């Protein structure tokens, strides 16, 4: 079983993990070579494109926030034994709810008030959407994976409908989204970059909250108990249903916050792809990090940099920036294969030890 604690034991299979990543990197290098470029050049260029200018670094930070938020939310659901694939939809609904709040308030309330309400609306939207998946799961006995994926489609459809329908900008209905909000409704940024201190602080607060709750509170402990063994937990008197729904709600709140911030701090409007697939990316982050909140930040930072740095592929090398998606996928697969192999190796080692003993 892949549980956080498995990281603690000394690992006879560590070589497999490193080895799998190395093989993955070699595969990627080969792929780049096939396109006629030097992997080193591409790597250097991508690092430069992620950290070269303050704009770019700020963008890494700006992408880091939704990744961190969604990943923190997923820490709760994963530890409750839930596969909240609906995180994308929760993010989208968060974005829609924040947009709705801004549209209602932009003419009547002062900017900061409208923005605060919009953030809360985003959170609420995410919670509602997640609880919908939770209710289908807990009361309707529908796998949360399918409930989540289904609700993702509904959320995406709703966003597209609103953008092409009731919320389209005057005279224009386009993929590029609703009319941008006035600058008074943009979250302040650091200099002229895209990093918003408000968003960064929100991400940081949520991260610290998540780490503390999961490591230091009875809530976190009980959540893990429910996730590991709902039957035992029930027998012991832990209300499993309530904990499952709490996990959904927390995850939804964080994804909804991420969606709201995408509107307020990044796009300043609702676009059909407001989640930018960051929810799915954060699923990978959490799984790679062994469901441990402590690994969220470094992994999210890495993937954020990869995501931002990949924009240089088409600019500098005329390479598909989708190659970055391939790189991501290969690395994740390599890490998972490595983990699987190392677990097998450890199981073999244990079996051998038992035989000797």
């Amino acid at each position, binding site marked *: 079983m892949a549980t956080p*604690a498995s990281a603690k034991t000394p690992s006879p299979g560590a070589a497999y993990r490193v080895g799998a990543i190395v093989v993955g990197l070699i595969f990627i290098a080969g792929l780049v070579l096939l396109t006629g470029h030097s992997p080193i050049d591409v790597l250097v260029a991508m690092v430069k494109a992620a950290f070269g200018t303050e704009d770019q670094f700020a963008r890494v930070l700006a992408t880091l926030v939704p990744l961190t938020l969604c990943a923190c939310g997923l820490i709760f659901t994963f530890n409750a034994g839930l596969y909240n694939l609906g995180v994308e939809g929760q993010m989208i609904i968060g974005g829609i709810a924040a947009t709705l709040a801004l549209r209602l308030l932009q003419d009547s309330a002062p900017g900061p008030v409208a923005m605060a309400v919009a953030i809360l609306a985003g959170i609420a939207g995410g919670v509602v959407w997640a609880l919908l998946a939770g209710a289908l799961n807990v009361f309707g006995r529908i796998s949360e994976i399918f409930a989540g994926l289904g609700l993702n489609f509904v959320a995406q459809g709703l966003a597209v409908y609103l953008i092409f329908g009731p919320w389209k900008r005057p005279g224009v209905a386009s993929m590029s989204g609703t009319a941008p909000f006035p600058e008074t409704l943009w979250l302040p940024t650091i200099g002229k970059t895209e990093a918003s201190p408000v968003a960064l602080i929100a991400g940081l607060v949520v991260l610290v909250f998540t780490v503390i709750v999961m490591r230091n*509170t*009875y809530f976190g402990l*009980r959540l893990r108990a429910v996730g*590991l*063994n709902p039957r035992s937990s029930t*027998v*012991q*008197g832990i209300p499993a249903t309530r904990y499952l729904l709490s996990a959904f709600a927390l995850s939804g709140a964080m994804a909804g916050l991420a969606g709201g911030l995408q509107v307020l701090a990044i796009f300043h409007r609702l676009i059909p792809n407001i989640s930018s697939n960051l929810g799915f990316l954060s699923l990978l982050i959490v799984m790679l990090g062994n469901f441990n909140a402590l690994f969220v930040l470094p992994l999210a930072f890495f993937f954020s940099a990869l995501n931002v740095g990949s924009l240089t592929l088409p600019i500098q090398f005329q390479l598909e920036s989708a190659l970055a998606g391939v790189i991501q996928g290969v690395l994740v697969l390599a890490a998972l294969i490595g983990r699987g192999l190392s677990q097998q190796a450890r199981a073999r080692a244990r079996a051998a030890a038992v035989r000797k003993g």
Partner: protein
Amino acid sequence: MLVELRHIHKRFGAVHANNDVSLTARPGRVHGLLGENGAGKSTLAKILTGFITRDSGDILLDGKPARISTPADATAAGIGMLHQDPLDVPAMTALDNFMAGMPGRSPVTVLRGAAAEKRFREIAAGLGFKLDPRDRVGDFTVGERQQLEVIRLMALGVRTLILDEPTTGISAAQKDQLFEAVRQMAREGRSIIFVSHKLEDVCALCDEVTVMRRGEVMGGRVLREEGRLLDTPARISSDLVTLMFGRELASPSRETHRQEQPAFTLSGVVLDDRRLRIALPEIAIRRGEIIGLAGLEGSGQRLLLQHCAGLLPATAGRLLGRTDLTHKPHKAYLRAGIMYLPADRLKEGLIGGLTLQEHVALRRSVAGKAGTFVNRASALDGAEKAITALNIRGRPDSRVERLSGGNQQRAQLALMPAQLDLILMEHPTRGLDVESAMWVWKLLRERCASGTSILFASADLDEIMQYSDRVIVFSGGQVAPPVEANALDVDRLGRRIGGQMDA
């Protein structure tokens, strides 16, 4: 085909699942393999069918050593197994399943549906099964799916058929049909191994029987010659029960902590979990009393324990403790000081993935004696104390699934709250070494001294006789009123379990 298993050994970690097991199944005979759950029957069946590799020992087929290390080897040798869980594809028709299960055909072979259907109908008719090959398997009952599987195995040309607990979940009529088909297959010269923990089925069907207990063969009997029973059914079953449960006599005399005052009373309780329905007699559990629940597994002991734990509401009747607990939520039972320790420790008791220390913290939070933040120091302290007190071989940061069975059971006991009125246990010492078993009972009896009552189910009649003040016998859907253990011995208990309630 003559199947001979010689001195088979198989260990899983510390558990010796098959300890020097030998068995001979002859062509034309139905051979029963009888024993309680966990006796090692399934392990043996899986060794013979290649699903498990044995540590040592020989398999001889028609007198020649055979190499069986994969399921394919077994199939090629003509050994087929009817699994407990059907292996078919519910969305397809019976005929499609039948054809899909035919090995050795290249994937491009044109399916000869008509020929296959003809063959299907021939075999079905020969065995007396009334299956329509065009029906969807998803609409079949468990018994019909079993019949389909038997037909498939016959088409494969098996010469030895193993049936693993085949009578679970099928109707009485289907059971008769199955038994008739099994006899027919034996008449055609096949050897049959019938794996079961159900005494009555073995008596009704088998020509010979091998009884296993705790991984060892306890003995073998010939029940029938030329289709006729060699003794009366009652004597046969009491003989087999003794083999199943052991005849070592323990001294029933021991001190009791039983007080006069009843702690819990069940009156007119009827329990029903859809598979089984039992009506319980009046039961008054007294303070400090230990009541053993005896019977073949699945006779309703578990229903009673779960009911008392508040996990299975009764369809009728009342349960009274200090307060009326009838139809109260599970929480009320926990508050009433009732603790349930299930047989499957890692499934229903402990939480695999959490450490001992985390279990200590978790129990404290459930007991409502904790704030928001986990007090690690005190949990560590509690875990260390428990480890010392119960002699658990483990550390506070050991994850419970890494502990041995005995240490898991000790951990479960260590995690029990200090104040308890009733402990409900299934198989308190199953899978435990002798030392652990003694520890467990020492601890339980200490609890009784402080007024806690204990209800426990066990397949080990010695354990029941040794520790119970009173015994409740479950047999064939009947539950007898509690009997003083002093008034019983293992033999009489065995006969009662076998159905002679007045023995």
